[in-house]
C-alpha cells in the first residue's frame, strides 16, 4: 500500500502572542510543531503500513526550516520525505497550495491513499485536503475517526453532527484525520538516530513539478488578506465583593435574578 501524507509545520498557537500595538504575531520563541491533526494522519498511515505493509511518503510545502517537521515524521517511521520549497509558492492560499500539492502527488504517483489532517491550527481552513482531492479527481472522506482497509477498498467511520457515517470507497482516495482517529506514536530511538544523522529529506522546487504558474503563489491565489486586526474583547466587568464565597454567590444570584437570567 502506497500512502502519501501531507503535513504542515505550524507555530504552536497555544504559545502565540500578539503585539497589541502593531497587531502582528510575535513569532520569536514560539515553537514550530507538526500540525496536530497531521500527526494523526501520519499515525493513520503508519498503522495501515504496520498491518498491510507498504510505503509512507510525507509531503510538505514551506520554507527550508519545515524540513524539521519532515524529519520528525521520518523518525516516527515514514519511509520518505519531500519538501516543496520555492519562492514561487510563497503567498499561496488554499487554492494555490492544493494546486502545488496535487502536482507533487502526481509527480510521486502510484498512490493508494492520500492522508491529510482535517485542518491546521494556524489557518483552521480544512480546505486544502478536499481541494487537493478535487484537483486529483479522487474521492475523499473527511473527519475520519476509524479506518479499515479490506482488499482494494477502505472503510471509514466519519464524524458528522448527526452521528457517525460509515463510508466505503475504492482506492485511490483522500482521507482527512481528526484527533479521535488515534494516538500518534513517539519516534523510536533508532528512528530519531536515523532521521537526524542523515539528510534524507528531498527538496523539490518549481522545476520539479508540472504546474500552471497562473494558479499558484500570491498572484495565482483567488483569495487574499484585505486586512488583519487583533480582536477587542474587553468589557466593563464588575467583580463582586464579599466576605466569603457564600456571600459573593448570593450577591451574584440576586443580580442574575434581577436580569431574569436564572
Amino acid at each position: 500500500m502506497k500512502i502519501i501524507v501531507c503535513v504542515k509545520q505550524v507555530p504552536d498557537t497555544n504559545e502565540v502572542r500578539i503585539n497589541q500595538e502593531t497587531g502582528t504575531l510575535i513569532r520569536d520563541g514560539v515553537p514550530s510543531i507538526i500540525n496536530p491533526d497531521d500527526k494523526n494522519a501520519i499515525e493513520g498511515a503508519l498503522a495501515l503500513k504496520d498491518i498491510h505493509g507498504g510505503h509512507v511518503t510525507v509531503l510538505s510545502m514551506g520554507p527550508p526550516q519545515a524540513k524539521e517537521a519532515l524529519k520528525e515524521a521520518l523518525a516516527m517511521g515514514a519511509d520518505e520525505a519531500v519538501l516543496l520549497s520555492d519562492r514561487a509558492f510563497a503567498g499561496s492560499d488554499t487554492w494555490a497550495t492544493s494546486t502545488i500539492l496535487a502536482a507533487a502527488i502526481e509527480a510521486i504517483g502510484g498512490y493508494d491513499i492520500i492522508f491529510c489532517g482535517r485542518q491546521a491550527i494556524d489557518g483552521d481552513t480544512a480546505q486544502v485536503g478536499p481541494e487537493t482531492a478535487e484537483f486529483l479527481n479522487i474521492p475523499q472522506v473527511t473527519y475520519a475517526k476509524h479506518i479499515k482497509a479490506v482488499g482494494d477498498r477502505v472503510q471509514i467511520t466519519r464524524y458528522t453532527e448527526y452521528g457517525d457515517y460509515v463510508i466505503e470507497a475504492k482506492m485511490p482516495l483522500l482521507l482527512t484525520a481528526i484527533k479521535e482517529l488515534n494516538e500518534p506514536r513517539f519516534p523510536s530511538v533508532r528512528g530519531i538516530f536515523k532521521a537526524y544523522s542523515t539528510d534524507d529529506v528531498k527538496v523539490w522546487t518549481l522545476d520539479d513539478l508540472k504546474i500552471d504558474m497562473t494558479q499558484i503563489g500570491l498572484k495565482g491565489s483567488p483569495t487574499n488578506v484585505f486586512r488583519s486586526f487583533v480582536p477587542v474583547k474587553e468589557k466593563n466587568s464588575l467583580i463582586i465583593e464579599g466576605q466569603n464565597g457564600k456571600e459573593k454567590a448570593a450577591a451574584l444570584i440576586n443580580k442574575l435574578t434581577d436580569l431574569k437570567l436564572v
Partner: protein
Amino acid sequence: MNRAKVNQGNNLADYHDVWVIAEQNEGKIHPVTIELVGEGRKLADSLAKKLAVVVPGADAEDEARKLLHYNVDKVYYIKHPLLKDFSTEGYALSISELILEKQPEVVLLGATSIGRDIAPRIAGKVGTGLTADCTKLEVDGEDHKLLQTRPAFGGNLMATIVCPKNRPQMSTVRPGVMEKAAYHQEIHGKLEIFIPSLKEEEIRTVLIEKVKSDKKKVNLIDAKVIVSGGRGLKAPEGFALVRALAEKVNGEVGSSRACVDAGWIEHLHQVGQTGTTVRPDLYIACGISGAIQHLAGMSEAKYIVAINKDPNAPIFKVCDYGIVGDINEVIPAMIEAIDKNGSFEI
C-alpha cells in the same frame, strides 16, 4: 489534468444574487441554514440583489418550500434520487452544476462537518476562491466586494479575506454566529425544481451505515444558559459541580479545550475556536482562565459570569460579573442561593 481554473478574466458583472446552500439531513433543515438566510438577506439588500436558497435532496420538497417563509426570493430544490443521503461528490457535483448555470455572486454554506467537506470541492469545480469558517460578512461600500472576516491563529488574530477577481465569492460560515432569519406567514418567493445530470458512477463513495448516537445530545448552539468548566476544576470530578449548577439553571454543560484534551469530558462539550461557538443569554465560566481560543467561541454571550481563583485571569476582562473564589465553595453556594430565591424557570 482537466480541472477548473481561477483568474480567467470573467466579467464580474455577469454574476448576480446571494445564495445560501441549505443543509438537510433526512428531510430536516439544519439551524445554520436559517442563520445563513438571515445574514444572506442583509447582504442581498446591501447589494440590491435577490436571495436564493439551494436545497439538494431526494424527498425534501416540503422542507424546501418552508424556507420561502423566511423572506427568501427563491428556493432552488435540486432533486435527484441519488441525493437522498449525503455524499461529497453527489452534492458537490449537483450544486456546482446549478452554480455554473445560474452564476450567483455570493454563495454561503454552513461551516459544519458537511459544509466544510463539500465547499472546497464546489469551489474547485467552479473555479473560485473560498474563505473558511467566517464569523462576519460585510459588503464593501466602494466596490461591493464581499469582506469575509474570520479568526486565525487560534483566535489571536482576525483576518478579513476578499476574492477580488473570481465569482462567486464563497464562504463557509461558523454555526451559532449569525442571527436567525424570522419566520413570516406570507411568502413572496417561488420554488424552482432543478434536475441535475448526476450519474451513479460519479459518486465513488458508498454510505454503508449511519450510526445513531445513543448518547444524550449536547445542544450548545441553542442553549440559553451554558455552565462551562475549565482547568480550574482540578479533576474530572469537578464536572459534577458544573453539571449540578447547569441542571439548576436549565443549562447545558460546556468545557474549555484543556479539559477535553485531558480527557475529562467529550469534545461535543467544547466551546471555543476548535469547538462550538455559542451565544447564550448567560454563560457561566467556572475555573476557565480565558485563553483567546476559548474567548473566540463565547464572547458573544449576552451575559458572561466568571468564577476563578486567580484575580488576574484574562476571563475577568471579558465578563460582566466576576467572582474571585474557589469553585468548590462558590458553586454550591450559588445552587443554595437559587434554591432560597425560589424556582427559576426561563
